[in-house]
């Protein structure tokens, strides 16, 4: 008996410490505060579809990663705290499969600015004018169809610099390719002497020089479009933008979401408020119906809450309104294991067992139901997590799955330790009353 009580006290102490950890790390400067999703914190989420049609399948993931790095740099220039940039494969099979880039900017409100900063598509391409059109350029309007791709793009760019023509003073943008790009550039120029090579920026022709000879060393230049002081600025911007990254893959904005900070705060308050009252209502129900075991279940539920919140902080789990809803839902479900055990205990008591035996038997028999039923909930959570198309659903699935898992743990450890710690021998009338439940004699 002493040993059991010792463990029960230890359990409550440890849970208290966990609770204190959760409580004490909520300050604004704490490194362990709750991580809030965009819907609670306010911010912008942009989702881009990457056009991978022109890229060999083997290269896609590498290019997507360099795309991600480039966007990260752009966002950092923007000065967002803790941006999250993710690549997401969508579509499950073959031709439907495509790549998306998800950019989360917490705390931002300037949608137009964010889109401009992130999504500027400096797609630099070097395309050859088709042979049959070479003599008629002056008469025909040129379209994208008038050119053939050389495979040389901004992805091979090492750096861009601003230069001025020593005689006219006109600015030009000098491009330096990386070694792979230099080889490709040399090959393109060697094979296509006397043809016209157009430099495309974002689908616009920037210049279209004639290739005179093979160019080795990987140097090219964009010139002729920069007039006057506006031209200098344009050239400067172009240089910095090219250096910040000509996107290796063209991207298209397909989803914008923005949540104002005030809406986020309202949602947080409402969530906390709802969570608090849900707990109180459940606790009242448990105590009124199951009396003493009900009270123990409430303690065990508190331990569940403390562990869960601590894990949210430690992993850390990004909490969204849906995630918190999942947590509140799991409060209701976490009680289930306790109820299963109590109902089983009550049956054993009704069969005339001693209180202590009834508690043990109740646990042993309820365990199978608890295990099987929770397994199905965990299966649901895993599938939800794996197949969710939105971060909202992912957040919900993670919280829900964790909740089911932890509730199983607290039911078989906490509830059990607490119930066994109560003096069962020679249980008098009072004890029997406390252990029976509402609705039953």
């Amino acid at each position, binding site marked *: 008996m002493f040993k059991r009580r010792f463990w029960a006290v230890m359990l409550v102490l440890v849970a208290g410490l966990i609770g204190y950890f959760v409580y004490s790390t909520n300050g604004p400067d704490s490194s362990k505060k709750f991580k809030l999703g965009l819907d609670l914190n306010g911010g912008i989420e942009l989702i881009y579809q990457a056009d991978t049609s022109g890229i060999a399948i083997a290269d896609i993931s590498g290019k997507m990663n360099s795309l991600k790095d480039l966007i990260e740099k752009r966002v950092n220039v923007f000065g967002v705290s803790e941006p999250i940039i993710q690549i997401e494969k969508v579509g499950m099979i073959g031709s439907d499969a495509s790549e998306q880039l998800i950019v989360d900017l917490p705390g931002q409100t300037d949608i137009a600015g964010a889109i401009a900063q992130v999504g500027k598509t400096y797609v630099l391409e070097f395309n050859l004018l088709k042979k049959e059109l070479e003599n008629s350029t002056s008469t025909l309007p040129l379209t994208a169809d008038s050119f053939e791709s050389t495979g040389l793009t901004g992805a091979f760019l090492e750096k861009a610099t601003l230069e001025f023509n020593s005689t006219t003073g006109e600015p030009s943008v000098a491009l330096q390719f990386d070694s792979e790009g230099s080889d490709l550039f040399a090959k393109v120029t060697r094979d296509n002497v006397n043809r016209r090579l157009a430099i495309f920026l974002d689908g616009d022709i920037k210049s279209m020089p004639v290739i005179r000879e093979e160019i080795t060393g990987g140097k090219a230049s964009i010139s002729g479009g920069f007039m006057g002081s506006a031209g200098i600025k344009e050239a400067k911007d172009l240089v910095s933008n090219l250096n910040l990254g000509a996107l290796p893959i063209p991207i298209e904005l397909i989803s914008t979401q923005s949540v104002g900070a005030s809406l986020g705060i309202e949602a947080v308050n409402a969530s906390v408020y709802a969570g608090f009252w849900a707990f109180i209502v459940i606790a009242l129900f448990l105590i009124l119906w199951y009396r003493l075991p009900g009270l123990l279940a409430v303690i065990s539920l508190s331990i569940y809450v403390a562990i869960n919140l601590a894990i949210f902080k430690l992993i850390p789990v990004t909490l969204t309104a849906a995630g918190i809803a999942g947590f509140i839902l799991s409060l209701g479900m976490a009680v289930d294991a306790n109820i299963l055990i109590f109902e089983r205990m009550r049956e054993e008591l009704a069969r005339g067992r001693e209180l202590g035996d009834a508690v043990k038997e109740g646990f042993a028999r309820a365990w199978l139901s608890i295990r099987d039923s929770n*397994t199905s909930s965990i299966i649901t959570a895993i599938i939800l997590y794996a197949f969710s198309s939105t971060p909202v659903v992912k957040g919900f699935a993670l919280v829900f799955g964790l909740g089911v898992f932890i509730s199983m743990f607290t039911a078989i450890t906490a509830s059990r330790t607490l119930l066994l710690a109560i003096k069962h021998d020679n249980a008098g009338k009072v004890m029997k009353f406390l252990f029976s439940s509402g609705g039953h004699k």
Partner: protein
Amino acid sequence: MFIIKNRKIFYTFSALLIIISIVSLFVWKLELGIDFKGGSVVEIRYVDARPEVSVIKQNISDLAQTISLGNYVLQPVGDSDFSLKSRLVSDIERQQIENAFSNNGTIKTELKKVNSIGPLIGKEAAQKAIVSIILVILCIVLFITFAFRHVSKPVQSWKYGLMAIIALAHDVIIPTGVFSILGHFKGYEVDTLFVTALLVILGFSIHDTIVVYDRIRENLKNSISQNDKKDFETIVGESVSQTFVRSINTSMTTILALVVLYFLGPEATQHFSLALIIGVAIGTYSSIFIASALLVTIEKWQKQA
């Protein structure tokens, strides 16, 4: 046992609900949210007093003409907010909409929420939703078949799985039907969160069903070892009544939590909690009144065959 004896009454009741749901789904369909069909929602908050609704309506309708917005839904939200739902708008159009709301900047507004979703994402979300519902059902049936593999008499374990699916279909169809009715009369939309709610309902309902099946499994074993020659119907009836209080109480605590969430929780999860409340109630009902009763029915069929 009352429930098992009178199972036909409950079958009829469920069949009725399902028919109403399916008819409503055919006639009124579902009001799809923009995360499935693509589009934009812009929500504005007026920092000071909200201007006359008619003024805003006029401004938006003028703008809708110029940028050919097509069908749109303009609604006041609460005391100080307004929301505009329309086709997918570009960022420039979004700024024009903001301007229309703020009467060209003369009334102070704050952008509360913007949600623009391209049709591509919507299509993908819808696909994923269907795939995940099917997968969840499939995995659960496999799991039940596995968990009850030692039970073969008088009803084989895969039939437990099959009956569970019928109960699951019941639990998914009815809340969907309710949302189709709510969609028609009150404009409630079905979004990815609704699908999430359906999946949780599946999980919850199966959770309940497994607890009853588990009890049937145990009572069958006891009956065999004691050789008391109880018939299957009696065993199922006893199992249902033994787990009855637990099922009701677990659902009670869950529904209590959800009701609190519905009334006190954030706006964003209000319809979500409503879907869950309906689903949990229906799921509990089907676990008690349908899933186990079906086992008895199938056992009777086997005997006749």
